[in-house]
Each structure stands twice: as C-alpha cells, then as structure tokens.
C-alpha cells in the first residue's frame, strides 16, 4: 500500500498537483458554476480522457496520433447504441411502422434490428465494448503499423485518414448508424433519467472520479519500468531494440491504452450530452484533442486536464463573441504553443518553479547569478571530488 502511494505521488509535486486538480474539479468548480456551465465542463472533461491518453502516447512514447477521435467516437457510439435501444422500447415507438427499433432505422425503411446492434441491449456488454472495442481497433492498427516500423509523420497521417474513414463511414450508413445526425434523443440509463439536473450532477462527479482515477493509474504505470521504457523509446528507439526489447509492442500497448481511455471519455460524453454524431469522430475534433494536450504540456498528465479546460473554455467564450475567428485563433494557439512553449503550461510552471527556486537559493547563498546548467555542473563536480 505504502509502495503504491510513493509510486503514484512520488516527486516533489506529485501529491500537491493531484490535490490541486481534485479540489478544482470536485469543490471549486461545482460550487461556483450553475448546472448548465458545470455540464458543459463535464463535457470538456470527457475530452481530457483523450488528452491524458495522448500524454501517454505522444508525450511519453513519442507517437503522435491525429486520430484519437476515432476511439472517442467508438466508445461514444457503443454507449449511445445501448441508450438508444433503451429509448426505443415498443411502447414509446408505437407510431413507427416497425415499433421497437431506433427511429432513424424506421425512417430508413429498416424492418428489423441489424445483428450487430443486438448485443448492445445488454448494459454489461455495452460497457465492456466501450473499453474493448477501441482497444481492439487500436491493437489491429498498431500491430499493422508499428510492426512494419511505420512511425512519425506517416503514422500521424494514417491515423488521420482513419478518422476520416470512420466519420464518413458512419455518415454514409444512415440506416445503421443514424448517419450525419448521429444517435440522438437518448433518455434513460436502466430507467434512470440522465437529462435531469440531478443526474447531470452525478455524471459530472462520476466523470471527475474516473478521470482522476485514470491519471493516478497512468502515474502508477509511468513511475515504474514502463515509464522509463517509454522515455527510452522516445529518445533512443534503436538502443531499446538492441537491449532486447520488442519496441513495436510497447508502442502498440501505449496506443491501446490511449484508445481505451478515449473510449471511456466518449461514453461519458454521451451520458452527459445525450447524443453522439460523426462530427465528434472526424479529423477536426481529433486534431483539437492534440491541441488540448499540447497546450497543457504534452508530457504532463495534470497539464492535459488544465489544457483541455482552458482551450475549451476559451473556445466557448471566443466563439460566442467572434464565431468566425475561432478556427484561426485555434490554429494560432497551436503554432504559438509549439514554437514558443513546446512543453505547454506544464513547462511554464516548471520554469516558474525553477526560477523561484533559484531566486530563493540566490537569496540564501547571496550569490549574484546561478543558471540551471551551472547548478547541474556543481552537482556533478561535487560528486566527482
């Protein structure tokens, strides 16, 4: 138990960062926002799952995926299919020509439920699918790509194509997927009305709890050998290979983990927002999610949460006032972060912490100027002598 504690909260700011995020999400924001804004925030937090996954995949393992919307969407659709079937009971759909099937199927002249929808009548199946389906898809793509040493830009482009394929595929098979409108009018989860304020509060806290859990679990993974391996692969892939590791499997695993987190995020999105559509699966949302992680600091798990909240809050404020300028602002933000602060908010925080730390040291030592490399050198020299 103690071992787990030190692994998860190790490092000077481990516990402090966690408490700060937890306080913000669980106390400060619920107390200061009305339910409309809080529900909006809950929606943003579901994107944070994707951002946390990207921190593991991109920040730590160095693999950039521009198609995380695919996994967010898959998780979301799995959840939405269950909810839609529950909302389409024969009584409430009795005016349809085929009662008991989702309304969009009826509009598309389907007369029975397609076979792949049937398992989604079960909640436990649907919940498993939320995690396992994105993981499986990621596994197949990962094996196909990483075993052939496809990486870098090529991998990013392929994942982007995947996002396009999935969103177009959903779009074009209206009778089976709800098409461009998506799956809408989701009402209850096992009889529990998810549209009430009360339910929205509960779902918000469930989202927060799962997100914090995902961060702690990721932190636990990173604190062990896995974290070192990911870092080693990012920096010196060849060396890792010649130390006897199958590098591709580590990338596949990181991709699957990121996909599973995205799937959970997608399911929680559907529960809080009450619909899912292909516009949440495609290229633009996939890239936006990368921006969230980049702004927060692509190597920082906590940064991913702040980045997501900040960019989305900015988006809703900005687009309320200057809707046509938002995309430009977003692009500018991404370029700005990559060029000026490659480590994002987390990097700025580290810098500030180092600066204040140095200032304190200066005051104590009374010396005039110390820079970070000098300190590192003094440490090395000190140990040498």
């Amino acid at each position: 138990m103690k071992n787990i504690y030190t692994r998860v909260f190790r490092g000077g700011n481990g516990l402090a960062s966690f408490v700060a995020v937890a306080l913000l999400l669980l106390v400060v924001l619920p107390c200061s926002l009305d339910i409309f804004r809080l529900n909006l925030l809950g929606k943003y937090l579901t994107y944070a799952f994707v951002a946390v996954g990207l921190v593991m995949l991109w920040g730590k393992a160095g693999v950039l995926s521009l198609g995380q919307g695919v996994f967010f969407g898959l998780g979301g659709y799995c959840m939405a299919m269950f909810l839609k079937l529950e909302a389409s009971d024969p009584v409430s759909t009795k005016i349809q020509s085929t009662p008991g099937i989702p309304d969009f199927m009826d509009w598309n002249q389907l007369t029975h439920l397609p076979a792949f929808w049937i398992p989604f009548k079960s909640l436990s199946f649907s919940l498993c699918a939320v995690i396992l389906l994105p993981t499986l898809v990621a596994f197949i793509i990962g094996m196909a790509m990483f075993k052939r040493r496809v990486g870098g830009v090529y991998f990013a482009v392929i994942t982007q194509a995947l996002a396009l394929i999935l969103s177009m595929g959903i779009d074009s098979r209206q009778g089976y997927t709800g098409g461009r409108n998506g799956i809408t009018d989701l009402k209850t989860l096992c009889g529990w009305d998810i549209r009430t304020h009360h339910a929205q509060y509960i779902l918000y806290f469930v989202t927060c709890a799962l997100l914090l859990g995902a961060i702690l679990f990721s932190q636990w993974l990173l604190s062990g050998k896995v974290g070192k391996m990911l870092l080693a692969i990012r920096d010196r892939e060849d060396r890792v290979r010649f130390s006897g590791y199958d590098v591709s499997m580590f990338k596949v695993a990181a991709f699957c983990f990121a996909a599973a987190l995205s799937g959970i995020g997608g399911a929680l999105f559907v529960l809080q927002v009450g619909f899912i559509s292909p516009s949440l699966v495609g290229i633009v949302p996939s890239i936006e999610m990368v921006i969230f992680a980049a702004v927060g600091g692509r190597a920082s798990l906590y940064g991913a949460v702040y980045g997501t909240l900040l960019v989305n809050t900015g988006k809703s404020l900005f687009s309320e006032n200057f809707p046509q300028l938002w995309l430009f602002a977003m692009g500018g933000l991404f370029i700005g972060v990559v060029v000026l602060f490659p480590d994002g908010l987390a990097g700025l925080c580290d810098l500030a912490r180092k600066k204040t730390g140095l200032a304190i040291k200066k005051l104590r030592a009374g010396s005039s100027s110390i820079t970070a490399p000098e300190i590192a050198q003094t440490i090395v020299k000190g140990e040498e002598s």
Partner: protein
Amino acid sequence: MNSNNSFLLSIEDLTVSFDGFKAVDALNLFIEKDELRVIIGPNGAGKTTVLDMICGKTQPTTGSIKFKNSELVGLPEHQIVRRGVGRKFQTPSIYENLTVFENLEVSYPKGHSVMGCVAFRRTKEVVDRIHEMAEEISLQDYPDIEGAFLSHGQKQWLEIGMLLMQEPELIMLDEPVAGMSPAEREQTAALIQRICKGRCIIVIDHDMEFVSRIAHKVTVLHLGKILAEGSMEEIQRNPKVIDVYLGH
C-alpha cells in the same frame, strides 16, 4: 552452409549489396570463445555493415551468420539480443534523460515484454547487480546523474555497461575509444580485457596503438573483402595492408 563447428560465431559467404554496390562481399569470418578480434580497414571497407548484419539491423543479401551454431539471419533485432549478442554503436547511444542507475536498470535482462515491465520490481538482486556493474565501468559515484551530464568517455563506458548487463556472449564495440582522452583509453583497454573472459568481443577501431594493446587477432577489411587476418605484428608487416591502409 550447414557446417557445425566449435566457433562461437561463424560468418560464411556473407554478402550485402546496396543497389548493386557490394558493401560486404563473400565474407568469411570465424571467431572463437574468449577471443578478442579487432576489425580494421579504411573508410567504406564495410566494417560497420558487418556488425549491422550480425545484430540484425541490416539484412544480408546472401550468406549465413551462425552464433552458437544457430542461424541469426532473418531474426528480429530483439531476438538476436536475447540470444546473447550485444552491440555498442559508434556514437554513444545512452538514454540522456535517465540516470546512470536507470540506464543500467533498463538494460537488465528481465521484464522484456510489456506486461513484464508492468510487473517489474526493483529487487535487491537487481540493485546489487546494477551497483556491481557501475563499479565495473567506473561510474559507481554517479548513480543518480542523468546520462546527459556525463562526459563523452563516461557515456561510452555506460553504454558498454548497458551491454554487459545483458550478459551477452558476443559483444560488438564500434569505435569504443573514439573521442577519448589518453587516460580514458587506458581505462577502456583494461575494461575490454577484463570483460573478454567467457565471451568473445569484436572491436572496430582506427587507433593502432589501442588495437595493438587489446587485439588477439586482427582482421583487415578492404572493399568488403578480407585483405588480411592474423596477429598485430603480422598485419603490420603485411605489404598489402601497408599499401591500402596503414600507409608507408
């Protein structure tokens, strides 16, 4: 091709051509256990390419590489490593963002799979082995220094230490003393002689003084072929070698 023999490493008829250019041409090379072989030769002779083929980085066009009488050609790199082949690259190739301790820990030959890594624990056995190795490569005083802060020579030693962690039976060192001070060369030569016992080592180097200190046998490569093979004295007297490589 299928000859079984007592050599630890036997390379037979090894050829690789890049777009028709034969970088290594019908090479035969046999190395015994406990042997320290140095490969020398002018630039472009194919020295590094031979090492690349042994460790699986480059696929040969034809030929066979047998290690402990089993074929290495066609195996993925990590499998070759797990069979006991270690490779040090020309430029120091260590993890700059990990500490000396962590660099060695990552090279510890347990927990190679993803789940193995998740379950990996830093047991006393692991820690002891790492400290032992740090001592061997003269880095015992800097376990917590990040790789990036080490001197060039220390990085080279660390990489040799990372190889040794895997307890390989064949070690390949590509220019291990390049860029080292004379004192560091001394130490490296002593280190290589120490670790030679119970395994075989292939070294590529240009520094003749260093080569003559460590080599049991020297192979001279030229244009992808063996020009001469023998003891250092024989090589230095060989007129062909003097002509193409050592100079007047």
